């Protein structure tokens, strides 16, 4: 597994652990080396330096003894000799003290590496030579003048030279050892210092490396994530972090990539969908516009159809009095002619002779004028009523007598259908509840509903009459009821009835069972339903049994 794939915690642990191990190594190395250094310094202090000093002092004292012996040999009287003899004693004591000190020093190290064979040999030789020199010195004390000088220079000189040479060699040996130990200490110090410097440099490099690695493997990816998150926050979903490590940050980065990819895909899909929706919306708006146009046209057509039926009824209503007006007017014209003729014939006679005839004619004229006036008023009343219906506050509710409204529109519907089907006949049964009284409705709207339902009923019974013939009595029954805060208007027929499947669709717009091309829009019942339910907060329902007629019931709040 590559380093970058390790968990963040392990990465940090490894990094700092490595630094810790190296630091520990440096410390241990420094401590060990300090021990070696201390040993070298201790060797110098405790052994070599002391031995070098003692041996050097021995050398000095030996030379001093030799000098004093020369002075003793050259002394001119006993008193002088005694002074030098005393000096000799002192020097011998000092040499012995030095010798003892040296013996003690080497006693400690004899078994170890700090004592060489050469030094041992030198010690033995020096002891023997010193022994011999003392023997000669004893003899020397008794000698005087020339004899003493010769002895000192001769036999004793030879021994002393040998002694002195070996002693100097011992001093040199110890000094060399001191130097060697010092050199060793120095070398140890230098080595230690250099190695510690190298190790510290390595530690610093490792620390820098670890820090760089942590930055590379932790900080950089995290910063990348932060930047990516910022971009995503700004709406840029094209961010891709690429081939990340397998640690937690890598997992996060992969999840992040999946998220942005998913967001990107979804955004694209959304944009496409949005574009499609916009397009569809445009199309739908156009369609809706067309539909509204069509609907408006259809509603207009339906209104025109209703108007046609109304017009037929109205025309019939007005035609009747108009006939009377025409007939009585014609009669009046004839009566006027008759009056003129009668008067011409009796020109020469007094007025009294024709008065009876004139009065009769005038009575008839008056009667006719009254009839004309009566029927004129009747037509005027019809037109006024129509105007009242059509003009008075469109869409405005007002208390309307339900039974009268029903009668009026039954009449209009009947004459409307009679205008097109002159041989049409129907029995209209009325079962009115007088308690119904006035109900607050928009009369034109409710009239349209009644006209629709009645026209349908007449159409239905007429169809059945056409198929069943004389045995069948077409009947339409109009019922009103009140109670429980409602008013019910029922229009029933004994027509062919409505199949169940048709009943379900009957109030849908544009649904029709009538043949096409009959000027029928299929909007009649749907508009009626809308007027009753939405315009008047009522209900419109149908009850029908196939073959036994149908009944439409309007329920309105009283």
């Amino acid at each position: 597994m590559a380093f970058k794939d390790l968990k963040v915690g392990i990465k940090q642990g490894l990094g700092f652990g490595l630094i810790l191990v190296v630091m520990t190594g440096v410390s241990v190395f420094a401590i060990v080396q300090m021990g070696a250094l201390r040993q070298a310094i201790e060797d110098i202090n405790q052994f070599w330096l002391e031995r070098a000093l003692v041996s050097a002092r021995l050398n000095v004292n030996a030379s001093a003894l030799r000098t004093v012996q020369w002075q003793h040999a050259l002394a001119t009287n006993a008193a002088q000799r005694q002074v030098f003899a005393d000096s000799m004693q002192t020097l011998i004591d000092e040499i012995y003290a030095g010798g003892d000190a040296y013996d003690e020093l080497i006693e400690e190290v004899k078994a170890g590496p700090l004592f060489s064979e050469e030094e041992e040999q030198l010690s033995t030789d020096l002891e023997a030579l010193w022994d011999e020199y003392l023997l000669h010195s004893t003899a020397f004390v008794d000698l005087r003048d020339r004899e003493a000088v010769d002895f000192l220079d001769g036999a004793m000189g030879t021994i002393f030279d040998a002694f002195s040479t070996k002693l100097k060699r011992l001093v040199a040996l110890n000094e060399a050892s001191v130097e060697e130990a010092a050199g060793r200490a120095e070398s140890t110090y230098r080595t230690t210092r250099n190695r510690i410097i190298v190790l510290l440099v390595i530690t610093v490099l490792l620390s820098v490396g670890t820090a760089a690695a942590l930055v590379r493997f932790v900080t950089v990816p995290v910063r990348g994530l932060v930047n990516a998150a910022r971009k995503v926050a700004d709406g840029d979903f094209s961010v891709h972090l690429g081939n990340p490590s397998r640690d937690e940050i890598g997992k996060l980065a992969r999840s992040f990539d999946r998220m942005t990819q998913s967001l990107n895909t979804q955004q694209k899909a959304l944009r496409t969908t949005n574009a499609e929706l916009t397009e569809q919306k445009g199309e739908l708006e156009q369609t809706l516009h067309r539909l509204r146009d069509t609907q408006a046209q259809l509603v207009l057509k339906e209104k025109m159809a209703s108007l046609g039926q109304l017009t037929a009824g109205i025309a019939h209503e007005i035609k009747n009095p108009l006939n009377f007006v025409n007939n009585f007017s014609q009669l009046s014209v004839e009566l006027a002619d008759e009056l003129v003729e009668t008067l011409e014939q009796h020109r020469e006679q007094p007025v009294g002779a024709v008065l009876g005839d004139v009065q009769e004619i005038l009575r008839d004229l008056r009667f006719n004028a009254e009839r004309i006036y009566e029927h004129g008023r009747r037509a005027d009343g019809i037109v006024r009523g129509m105007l009242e219906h059509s003009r008075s506050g469109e869409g405005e509710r007002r208390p309307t007598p339900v039974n009268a409204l029903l009668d009026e529109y039954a009449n209009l519907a009947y004459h409307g259908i009679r205008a097109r089907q002159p041989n049409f006949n129907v029995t209209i049964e009325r079962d009115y509840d007088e308690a119904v009284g006035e109900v607050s409705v928009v009369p034109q709207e409710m009239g349209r509903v009644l006209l629709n339902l009645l026209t349908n009923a007449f159409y239905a019974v007429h169809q059945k009459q056409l198929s069943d013939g004389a045995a069948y009595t077409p009947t339409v029954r109009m019922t009103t009821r009140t109670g429980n805060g409602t008013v019910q208007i029922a229009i029933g027929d004994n027509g062919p009835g409505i199949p169940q499947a048709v009943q379900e669709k009957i109030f849908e717009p544009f649904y029709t069972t009538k043949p096409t091309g009959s000027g029928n829009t299929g909007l009649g019942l749907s508009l009626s339903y809308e007027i009753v339910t939405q315009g008047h907060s009522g209900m419109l329902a149908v009850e029908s049994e196939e073959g036994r007629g149908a009944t439409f019931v309007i329920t309105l709040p009283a």
Partner: protein
Amino acid sequence: MKGRIKILVWMLGLAAWAGTAWAQEVVVIAHPSVPVDTISQAQLLNFYTGDVQSWDNKMQVVVYDLKVRTEVRDTFYDFLGKTSSRMRSIWLKRKLSGEGDPPESFETEEEVVAHVARTQGALGFVSATNVNGAVKILTEIPLADQ
């Protein structure tokens, strides 16, 4: 081969030691007139350093030494707890301070025995083999184990 030589040398050494064990002993001898039959290390040291110069009966003590450093001589001074040079320095100091001379010394042990035998209050040391009936043996010092 090496091992065999080692064993051989060791056996020869053992034989030599066995043969000379008593003969190599150093003995302290005295003139028959000395008032003691035995002597301690401390008494010997006092006599040889010159600190004590007479026997208990006021008889003058005369000590003799060997001139050359031999095994016998080193064994004797070892027994006294002094090195040869230490003894010589003591004697030199005595001479320098005028307190006395170092012991008279001889080249051979026979001379030592002869002088002890004929000198009143004399003390000397020789190897046991050189002793004769003319002197009194005061103590025996085993040779330092070589």
